């Protein structure tokens, strides 16, 4: 469609068709870190199964899927922000606040699908505030999202004066446990769809390339006519939405909303992205990587519990396993 000005003139004999690596090689190369982490996850599971053979049972794998689903969803949103070289510290608070608002709506008798929409609004609002302050006012993402982290976490307590809410709606569990596609629980379905859709968008859609472009060099991206402001605003809004959605999935499973429910998740979500190959300076990583990072964190947690390692040692074990994983990744990178 672009009639390239200056049609290429070439000598027939000096022209060699450009060599493009085969699809397999390209995938292998561009998903190197992801593959390393996936291998690490499998190794962890095998090691754990030496102690505890149930590790590889269907039940345990379902546990891991269930436990990692909220973190995966949150990490995907955070990844979008990190890919643009931003950071979102507010997701944990958004998670908590969403849960409280949804809990209030449900215990106020609202129909659960409606309550979910209302609660997603929390993420949208927090994300829009983050995006607005970062994009239009030009404040540093760290500061902005630290502020919404503090405010959101505080409001999660304020809305119910600190009381937790038991969800009594008999159908709300369907959001997490139902099977929109028969045979596949929703929490798995949502994760698969979200990761696949994001990965597709990031690789194959112009919008996705823009996200990497902004993270790669935002000044150049602006010079190239990429709508940097809109995209940047968008990723913060998306991150908020993902955090809220993660919260709803979790709430639908746990059926109990607490003001502190997301407190530990922010650091985990950022860690998931970074383990999965994202750089905090932007422009790298993948949705699949963020997902694998989240799974790895959950798998380590699960393994430590299955083996029965004294919980005081859990942090050390988690740290060392992550260290080994990133060292493997690092070494394969040196080879390449």
């Amino acid at each position, binding site marked *: 469609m*672009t*009639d*390239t*000005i*200056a*049609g*290429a*003139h*070439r000598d027939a004999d*000096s*022209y*060699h068709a*450009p*060599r*493009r*690596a085969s699809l397999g090689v*390209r995938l292998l190369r561009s998903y190197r870190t992801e593959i390393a982490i996936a291998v690490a996850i499998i190794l962890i599971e095998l090691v754990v199964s030496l102690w505890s053979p149930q590790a590889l049972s269907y039940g345990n794998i379902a546990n891991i899927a269930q436990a990692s689903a909220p973190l995966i969803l949150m990490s995907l949103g955070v990844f979008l922000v990190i890919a643009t070289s931003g950071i979102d510290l507010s997701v944990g608070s958004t998670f908590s606040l969403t849960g409280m608002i949804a809990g209030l709506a449900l215990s106020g008798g609202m129909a659960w699908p409606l309550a979910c929409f209302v609660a997603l609004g929390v993420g949208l609002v927090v994300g829009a505030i983050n995006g607005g302050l970062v994009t239009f006012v030009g404040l540093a993402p760290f500061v902005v999202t630290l502020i919404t982290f503090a405010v959101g976490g505080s409001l999660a307590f304020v809305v119910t004066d600190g009381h937790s809410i038991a969800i009594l709606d008999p159908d709300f569990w369907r959001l997490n446990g139902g099977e929109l596609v028969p045979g596949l629980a929703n929490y798995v379905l949502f994760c698969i769809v979200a990761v696949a859709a994001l990965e597709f968008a990031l690789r*194959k*859609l*112009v*919008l996705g*390339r*823009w996200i*990497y*472009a902004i*993270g*790669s*060099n935002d*000044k*150049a*991206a*602006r*010079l*190239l*006519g*990429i*709508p940097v402001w809109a*995209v940047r605003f968008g990723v913060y809004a998306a991150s908020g939405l993902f955090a809220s959605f993660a919260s709803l999935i979790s709430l639908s499973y746990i059926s109990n909303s607490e003001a502190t429910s997301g407190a530990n998740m922010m650091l985990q979500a950022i860690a998931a992205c970074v383990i999965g190959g994202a750089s905090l300076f932007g*422009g*790298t990583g993948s949705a699949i990587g963020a997902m694998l990072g989240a799974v790895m964190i959950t798998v380590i947690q699960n393994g430590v519990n299955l083996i029965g390692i004294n919980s005081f040692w859990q942090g050390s074990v988690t740290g060392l396993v992550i260290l080994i994983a990133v060292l493997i990744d690092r070494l394969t990178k040196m080879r390449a």
Partner: protein
Amino acid sequence: MSASSPDFILEAVDIEKSFGATSVLRRADLRIARGEIHALLGGNGAGKSTLIRILCGLLRRDGGTLRVDGQEEASPNAIAVVFQELALLPHMTVAENIYLPHRHRGLERVRAAERREEARAALAQIDETLAREALDTPVAEIDLHQRQLVEIARALSSGARLLLLDEPTANLTFAESERLFSILRRLASRGIATLIVSHRMNEIRAVADVCTILRDGRTVVNRQPLTELSDAAIVEAMGQKGAMRAETAHAAIRATAGTTVSIEGPGLSVTLPPGSVLGLAGAPGGPSRLIDTLIGANTDLHWRIAMDGALRHFAVPAEAVRQGVGYVSGDRAEKGLLVTLPILDNVVAAARIAGRRWFAGRREARVTQDALERLAIKAGSIDDSPLTLSGGTQQKLLLARWLERIPRLLVLEEPTRGVDIGTKREIYAIIRDMAARGAVVVWWSTEFSELTEICDRIVAFDLRGTVSGVIEAGNISEVALARATGMAA
């Protein structure tokens, strides 16, 4: 609807712009006709890049009128720009850097295979090899010279009707520039206009039809055919009287004290007594490996360096610097500037290390001011960020690093990239003066006229990066260089 003549694709009248208190453009005029190749000339800091950024809508003007195609609002695809400080996405591939910026809607599919082929075709016009081998390489992994080609390919494949090229040839070889120019001419014949900024006089004459000259933000020559202007008149208009090429060839420099440097490697063995200026000519691949070895950035074991007879093997640049090796690169963004630090720190950074200083002292302000003054560097204050300087001025800043403390071996890699004609002459004089005081200079440049003017010996590298010959003082000429490097005109 507009009174403007339909012959002009772009008309800018009375453009004004200031940054804070410094006014950069003061009623600048520029009119570009369809299908013409138009040179925009002016000294460093005259306001060329600023004007270009206003023309393509990146910077808001403070005053004046601007019409593109007779319209107040340029249609988004009308203009393509090659930016002086390259606007590339380091994590993305060469191909993607070329095709991504084309205007799209966000939810469109990229259609990578198709686009990649377009990108390849565009790049192949100026560099077949790059198009063949580096299309899927991340831009972070290619060098400045190749990046420049990518940036140009992007503009060429954009489908725009007006190209704004801000010093596109600043680090292209003669052959590459020629290829670019022939493309531009072909485009011109199809009605596509080009505005080109360059500090290389012979190039300007070779490619452009008319020129506009800016001086201190004012248009001093407005749309004059180049045939009507002598070199002297152009230089005069730019305000750089003394910039004409020295008529008398310089005598070889005899330094009384200093270090003798010898370089041995595949196909080369030279001994450089104090005061010698060795040129490196040819496609960047070969010279860059030698340069990286000389400065300890990336040691290539094929090269053996000795200083005063003692073999030197620099594992890191710090070792080289401590042995008195100085380095200036034309890749100022990557290899030179410390952008978050003030001008002062940028200037004294090298002397602090070479002089093994502990204290960032009071004297440094004075030293910095002296250095800036000697290179006629225009800056608000030495506490400003180097980002407030024009491209050529930033380059001068990097050279200013080595004025205070003359290195024993000075390695220059395209050191005058973007520097204006007048200042180049001053830089040649300064380098020659350093040599006279005992420095050994190794100078790589894509501009043969520069090498022939200053070097007393030149090593030529061929296109594969191997040494193809050493040209001694008497035989140096642009023709000889072209022949030896395989980059015949």
